[in-house]
């Protein structure tokens, strides 16, 4: 049995009994559907994207109030005079989505370029503020709210009864889950999954992570707004209470308790929290002998317990328990070359200067890490950067790959001044790199990791991915990734999680990932570290072949034998300054280099 069968069975069961369920259960299921829609957005945001929001209830409120205002206010009726009454809720939906997208975009644009905790803090402020705005605007009915919202109508069919509206709610929810599932299984999905732990890496692969984060936040907000729109037409009445900060926190609880890394965890969490709240509001006042909002204590404790004991939520526990009879999805498809073509890059002619550093200086307060370093890397050449520990190699590497800016001096890539440019701009010009401390998405397969390297070479966006219009391009991306994996000798492990490989092989995966981007210049940070002798030989053979194909290669490496046999030219750094430069033979004979490596007074 496969998960898809279970989902179909679940839907079929729901459909079969839907007509016979008691009204109370139907209403409850409607609420669970509405809450799940919000929670599933939070799963994308929190579990997948590594961000979070406490203000989703306020977005639900925007969706609800937008349609409530359109449907009840005389001003709106004046504006929309020509339209039939039945169209008003649809105008309300559009207005709600537009306002929500705008607010979420502004909030995201302001906070998401900064470190991760500013967005949640911003959403707390936003969630609180909107409650006061709703409550104090007389045109929105103040704290008493707006009533008399008409039910939805679809092709002349009234959706007034929860039994009918519930079908729409659950259909929309399942549609949303399907679209999000598709999105995660795509080129854009790989970029989204990198947001949580690998932003620096993803930027180097050409992903605009801030933009992806903003889009993800807007998406989650839009899902909340749709939920609010349905809510308003189900309740036929809105007031500010269900949209305050506490409810926003409850939505997050649903996502986290259910399992914030899994789309279905949202449905599980929404179900559990809704049923629990129902029971607690019944029991707690009797138990404590006084009324009050005491269920928050239980929710809070439950949340603490889940985060301390099962931080991935309950869905993975459930998945574990059912493992014996529920097979996960079939192993990843063997990619076949599709009809779609990926972008191809014209490599510069051999000997042309590709990367150029002029008098690059970096100071950290008083410490000079790099002092007027000059270097150039040419096409069809392996250039090695060596130096003792603490010589400033990593600092220099960061500046020529766009991770950091030089204090003084200039870095030029393909003839362009790169001052102040982010590392994705370096990727766009054809710079591929690996990291000294391996940065792979450990739980994803080697294939997935390498395919992220080809991100820039595809163009299908979010909507195309959600609607499965990206399959041709996706096949081409995976085929390209597979080609690079085979070339690097990793074909046997292509479908294993990256974290399960030994460190040496993980470094090779990083090289394959860089190659998937079809770079003109390859920056390798200690690629031979952790490799066995034979593996080093095959790495050297690979780099020699790449050089013959016209790539410019810069290697930072400690293994002298590896460097001396491979490099065409070598630059030696010590205490941030270039002390020697030339062919391996010249460098090996340089007295200052010998002094730097073996100690002793020079000259």
């Amino acid at each position, binding site marked *: 049995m496969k998960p898809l069968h279970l989902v179909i069975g679940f839907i079929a069961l729901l459909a079969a009994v839907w007509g016979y369920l008691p009204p109370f259960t139907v209403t409850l299921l409607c609420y669970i559907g509405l809450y799940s829609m919000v929670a599933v957005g939070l799963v994308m945001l*929190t579990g997948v994207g*590594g*961000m*979070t929001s*406490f203000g989703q209830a306020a977005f639900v409120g925007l969706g609800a109030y937008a349609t409530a205002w359109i449907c009840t206010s005389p001003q709106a009726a004046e504006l929309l005079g020509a339209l039939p009454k039945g169209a008003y809720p649809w105008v309300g939906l559009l207005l709600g989505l537009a306002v929500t997208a705008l607010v979420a975009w*502004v*909030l995201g*644009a*302001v*906070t998401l*370029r*900064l*470190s*991760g*905790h*500013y967005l*949640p*803090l*911003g959403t*707390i*402020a*936003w969630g*609180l*503020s909107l409650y*006061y*705005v709703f409550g*104090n605007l007389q045109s929105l009915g103040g704290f008493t709210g707006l009533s008399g919202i008409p039910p939805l109508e679809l092709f002349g069919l009234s959706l007034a009864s929860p039994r009918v509206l519930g079908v729409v709610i659950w259909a929309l929810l399942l549609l949303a889950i399907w679209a999000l599932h598709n999105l995660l299984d795509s080129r854009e999905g790989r970029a989204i999954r990198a947001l949580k*732990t*690998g*932003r*620096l*890496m993803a*930027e180097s692969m050409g992903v605009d*992570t*801030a933009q992806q984060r903003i889009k993800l936040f807007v998406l989650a907000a839009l899902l909340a707004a749709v939920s609010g729109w349905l809510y308003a037409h189900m309740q036929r009445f809105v007031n500010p209470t269900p949209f305050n900060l*506490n409810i926003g*926190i409850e939505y*997050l609880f649903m996502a*986290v308790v259910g399992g914030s890394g899994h789309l279905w965890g949202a449905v599980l969490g929404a179900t559990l929290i809704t049923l629990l709240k129902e029971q607690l509001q019944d029991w707690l006042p009797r138990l*404590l002998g006084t009324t*009050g*909002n*005491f269920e*928050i*204590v239980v*929710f*809070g*404790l439950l*949340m*603490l317990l889940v*985060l*301390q004991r099962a*931080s991935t939520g309950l869905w993975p526990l459930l998945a574990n328990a059912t493992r014996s009879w529920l097979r996960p999805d079939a192993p990843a498809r063997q990619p076949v070359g599709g009809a779609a073509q990926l972008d191809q890059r014209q490599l510069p002619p051999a000997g042309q200067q590709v990367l150029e550093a002029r008098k690059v200086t970096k100071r950290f307060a008083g410490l000079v890490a790099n002092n007027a370093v000059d270097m150039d890397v040419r096409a069809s050449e392996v250039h090695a950067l060596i130096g003792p520990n603490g010589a400033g190699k990593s600092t220099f590497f960061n500046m020529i790959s*766009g*991770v*950091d*800016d030089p204090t003084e001096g200039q870095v030029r890539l393909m003839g362009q001044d790169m001052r*102040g440019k*982010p*590392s994705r701009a370096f990727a766009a010009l054809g710079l591929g790199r690996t990291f000294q401390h391996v940065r792979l998405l450990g739980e994803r397969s080697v294939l997935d990791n390498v395919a992220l390297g080809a991100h820039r070479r595809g163009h299908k966006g979010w909507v195309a991915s959600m609607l499965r219009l990206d399959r041709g391009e996706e096949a081409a991306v995976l085929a390209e990734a597979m080609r690079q994996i085979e070339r690097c000798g990793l074909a046997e492990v292509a479908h294993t999680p990256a974290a399960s490989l030994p460190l040496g092989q993980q470094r090779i995966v990083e090289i394959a990932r860089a190659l998937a981007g079809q770079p003109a210049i390859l920056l390798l940070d200690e690629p031979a570290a952790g490799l066995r002798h034979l593996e080093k030989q095959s790495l050297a053979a690979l780099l020699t072949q790449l050089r013959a194909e016209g790539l410019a290669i810069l290697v930072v490496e400690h293994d002298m034998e590896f460097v001396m046999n491979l490099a065409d030219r070598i630059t030696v750094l010590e205490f941030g300054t270039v002390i020697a430069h030339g062919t391996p033979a010249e460098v090996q004979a340089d007295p200052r280099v010998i002094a730097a490596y073996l100690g002793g007074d020079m000259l």
Partner: protein
Amino acid sequence: MDLQIALLLVQDGIVNGAIYALMALALVLVFSVTRVIFIPQGEFVAYAALAMAALQSGKPPAVLWMLLALAALTLLVEAVRQARGAEVDWKGTVVWAVLLPALAALMLLVVQPQSMLLQVLSVLLLVVPMGPLVYRLVYRPLAHATVLILLIVSVALHLVMVGLGLFFFGAEGSRTAAFSEARWDVGGMTISGQSLVILGVTALLVVAMFFFFERSIVGKALRATAINRVGARLMGIPTSLSGDLSFALAALIGAVSGLLIAPVTTIYYDTGFLIGLKGFVAAIVGGLGSYPLALAGALLVGLLESFSSFWASAFKEVIVFTLIIPVLWWRSLNTHHVEDEE
């Protein structure tokens, strides 16, 4: 608006700003040392204020039972850890989970002090140990979690503490007796003794904290931890010590703020949250890292609040919280490189 009203609003803004400054200091302290964004900071304010009010009305504050429960639970957890072979700091445990709670119980149940000074002392004994106890029970098991997870934990803890606040103190608000009833008339403006007490104590605390961090060895250890957690641990500064201390300081600052503000504003069980959040707005002005900028931010928040309560009182919270948007926008203009989250 005439000058008189303007001066009144300025005075109001400065007094409130002083409280927000204390909040902001505690938040920056806890965040830089432990990476915890301590949303429940405001709850200490409400607990202290309401406990003081209960004492002054002759009832021992019921929240004492919460402290005793936290202490018992901590002892249990430490015993289990000891049994499992973990190294337990029993000296600290005895201070936070036995000595101080016992003193608090003694003061509140047996002595039931009448003098204001002893009442203040009792409330501090009640609230301060809650900081390290909460740290040990809630945050320490998650010491390696991401800032994001710690933030979600903080929000969960905030809900628990607000709910318990409602349970122990009820839904009614309270005010306490002023520390000073004095009033002066300066150029047509009335200055109350209480507002001078607030400013004086705030200044005193800020200066004391400055000396603590600049001069004392423990303060320097905390600063070292804030700059480099791993490095500090390698130098023999235990992570749990810095956690205990920073949360104790946060609770102390929260309790003092609560005692200061309770005579001027009616405090409800959930008032602390808003006060704490305004401290956050101030701290964010300083990027959650700079004490002087956070102080300046607090003053800004206080003034903005008092002037907006004059012009658009229904929207004053909205205006104060919206302040973070331009502040964050300005900060985001200066970042174009991406760093991975810790």
